[in-house]
C-alpha cells in the first residue's frame, strides 16, 4: 500500500513537468498578451513593449521557462498580473470557496443519489424506477449554466428565498481565518455568518449537483441490481438474516464500490462545472478567477492555477484508489 502511494506520487512529477511545458507553450501562443488586457486597444507600441519588458516577456521562451521552474522549486508561482498579489495567496483565498461549493454539490448528489438509486433498484420495474432512470438521463442533458440561471431566476429573483450572488452577505462583517466561510463562522462562533454562508451555497450547489446526482443514481442502481442477483445475497437471506442486515452488510457494502470510483472521477467534472456555476452566481472561487484570468491573459495565474488543479485532481483520484482497497479487502493495491 505504502509503495503504491509513493509510486503514484512519484508519477505525478513527470506528469506535472510535461503539463507545465504544455501550459507554457500554450500560454505564450495565446493571441494578445497581458499588455493588451492592461492597456486595451489604445496603448502605443512603446508602452506595450515596456510592459512586456517589465513582466520579463521579451526574453526567449526557454529562459522564461527556466525562471518559472526555478521559482516553482521554491513553491513560488509568481504574482498575478491583474491583482498584483501572489498566485499562491490568490489560490488559497479562493480555493476554499470552490471546495465548499464542491462539497455542497457532493453532499446533495450523494445524499439524494444513493438512496434514490438504491430504491430504484429494489423496486426494479416500478414507476419510481423508470422515473429515476429517466430523470437521471435527462439530468445529464441540461446545460449546467442554464440550470443555474433558471434556479437563480426562480428561487432568488422571483421568490427571494435564496441570495442570488456572492459567498456571503456583505453586511455581515465576519472574520475569515481559514477562508472556508462556513467553517470560519463555526470556529469563531459567528453563527449568523455560518448560516448565511450556507444559504449562499445552496442554489449554486444544487446547480452543480445536477450531473453528479444523475450519474450517482444510475451507477448505484446498476450496481445494487447486480449485487442483488448474487448468490451470497440469496445465501444470506436463506440463512434467515433480517432484511436490514442483508441490506447493510451484504448489498450496500458490495454495491458501493463502483459508486466510490465514480465519485472520484466526478471531481474533474465538478471543477469544470464550478467555472460555469461560479460565473452565473458571481461566487468567488477558483473557477470565476480562472475565467477572468483567461480574458486578462494573466499568465502566472493561469499557469499556477491549472497546475495546482491538476495536483489536487490527481491526489483526489489517488485517495479514491486507496479508499477502494479500504472498502473492499479483495482489492489490494500494489
Amino acid at each position: 500500500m505504502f509503495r503504491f502511494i509513493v509510486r503514484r506520487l512519484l508519477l505525478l512529477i513527470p506528469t506535472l513537468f510535461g503539463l507545465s511545458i504544455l501550459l507554457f507553450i500554450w500560454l505564450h501562443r495565446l493571441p494578445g498578451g497581458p499588455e493588451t488586457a492592461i492597456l486595451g486597444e489604445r496603448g502605443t507600441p512603446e508602452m506595450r513593449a515596456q510592459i512586456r519588458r517589465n513582466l520579463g516577456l521579451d526574453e526567449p521562451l526557454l529562459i522564461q521557462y527556466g525562471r518559472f521552474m526555478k521559482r516553482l522549486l521554491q513553491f513560488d508561482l509568481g504574482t498575478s498580473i491583474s491583482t498584483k498579489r501572489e498566485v499562491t495567496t490568490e489560490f488559497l483565498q479562493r480555493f476554499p470557496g470552490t471546495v465548499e461549493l464542491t462539497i455542497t454539490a457532493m453532499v446533495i448528489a450523494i445524499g439524494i443519489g444513493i438512496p434514490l438509486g438504491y430504491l430504484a433498484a429494489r423496486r426494479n420495474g416500478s414507476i419510481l424506477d423508470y422515473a429515476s432512470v429517466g430523470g437521471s438521463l435527462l439530468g445529464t442533458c441540461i446545460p449546467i449554466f442554464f440550470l443555474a440561471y433558471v434556479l437563480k431566476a426562480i428561487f432568488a429573483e422571483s421568490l427571494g428565498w435564496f441570495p442570488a450572488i456572492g459567498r456571503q452577505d456583505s453586511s455581515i462583517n465576519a472574520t475569515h481565518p481559514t477562508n472556508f466561510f462556513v467553517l470560519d463562522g463555526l470556529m469563531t462562533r459567528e453563527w449568523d455568518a455560518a448560516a448565511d454562508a450556507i444559504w449562499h451555497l445552496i442554489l449554486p450547489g444544487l446547480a452543480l449537483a445536477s450531473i453528479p446526482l444523475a450519474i450517482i443514481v444510475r451507477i448505484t442502481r446498476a450496481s445494487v441490481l447486480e449485487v442483488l442477483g448474487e448468490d451470497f445475497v440469496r445465501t444470506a437471506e436463506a440463512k434467515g438474516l433480517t432484511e436490514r442486515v442483508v441490506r447493510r452488510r451484504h448489498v450496500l457494502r458490495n454495491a458501493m464500490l463502483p459508486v466510490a470510483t465514480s465519485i472520484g472521477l466526478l471531481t474533474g467534472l465538478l471543477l469544470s462545472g464550478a467555472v460555469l456555476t461560479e460565473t452565473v452566481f458571481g461566487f468567488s472561487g477558483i473557477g470565476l478567477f480562472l475565467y477572468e484570468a483567461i480574458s486578462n491573459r494573466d499568465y502566472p495565474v493561469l499557469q499556477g492555477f491549472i497546475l495546482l488543479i491538476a495536483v489536487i485532481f490527481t491526489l483526489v483520484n489517488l485517495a479514491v484508489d486507496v479508499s477502494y482497497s479500504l472498502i473492499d479487502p479483495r482489492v489490494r493495491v500494489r
Partner: protein
Amino acid sequence: MTLASGQKKEKLDRLGELAAVRDDEQGVSLWRDAFRRLRRNPAAIVGAIILALFVLVAIVGPFLVPYDPAAPIGVQDGVVRSGQGIIPGPSSDHWLGYDHQGRDEFSRLIAGSRQTLIVGVVSTLIGLTVGVLLGGLSGAAAGLGGRWGRWVDNILMRIVDMLLSVPGLLLAVSFAAILGPSPITVMIAVGAVSVPIFARLLRGSMIAQSNRDYVLAATSLGVRRWKIAISHVIPNSLAPVIVQATLTLATAIIEVAALSFLGLGTQVLGQPEWGLMLAEAQQYLGIRPALAIYPAVAIIITAFGFTLLGEAMREALDPKLRK
C-alpha cells in the same frame, strides 16, 4: 525472401483471418445480436425517433423556414427595440416571436438544428479520430509490442493522463483561446476534451482482447503483429468506443453551449446555432426569458435522444447485462 515463403506467409495470413472471422459467423454475430436487442428496447426506440426527427429537421428545415433566420426583420419593421426592452413574443406571423436582433425566432430555431448537428458530429469525430489513433497505437503497443511497445504505450499514456488531469471545460477553454475565434475552433476545443477518454477506452479494451485465444491462434499461425492489431484486435475492441461516441455527441452539444456562454463560441459560418442562441439570450432573461428556454429545450431534447440511444447501445452490447 523466396517466392515460396512469401506465398506461404500470405496463406497463413488468410488462415489467421479465417480462424478469427469464423468465430463470428457461427451463430449470431455480436452486432446483429445487439441490434436485435436494441430494437426491443423502448428507450432505444424513443432515442432513435428523437434523433431521426432532429436529423430530418437539420437536413430539410433550413429550406422550409418561413423567414430568413439572419434577417433582422423585426428591427426593420420597428417592432423590436431590445435596447428599450421591447422584444415581442409569439404571434400568428411569428410563432415564437422575435429574438433580440429582431430575427424570427422560430426560423432560427429550425435553421439552428443544422449547425448544432454539424458542430456536434464534427467535434465528436475529431475527438474520436485522435483518440482512436492514440489509443489504438497505445493498445497495440501494450498488448502486442513487447518491451519496446510497453515503452511507447507508457509515453502515450502519460500524455493522455496529462490531458485527463485538466478538467474538461478548462481544456476546451484552453484550446478555444489558443486557436482564436474561427468556426473550426469550437469543434476542435470540444473534440479535444474527449480525446483522452476515447484513447483510454480503446486501449483498455484492446489490452483485454490481446489476451484472447484468437490472438494467440493468429500469432501462432505467423500473422504479423500489426496485422493482428489492425484487422483483429481493433475491430473487436470498438464496441465500447462506439457507445461512448454516441454519448459524447450529447455532451459535445452541451459543451459547445458552455463555450458560447463563456464567450468563446463563434458563430459558425454566420448561421444560427442553439448553443450560441442560448448564450446570447442570457442577457435578455429579464425581458424575455423564453428566448433562452426555446434553444435550451431543443438542446436538452436532442442530447436526451443521444443519451437514450447510447445507454441502450451500452446495455445491448454489454454481456453482463444480458438477461
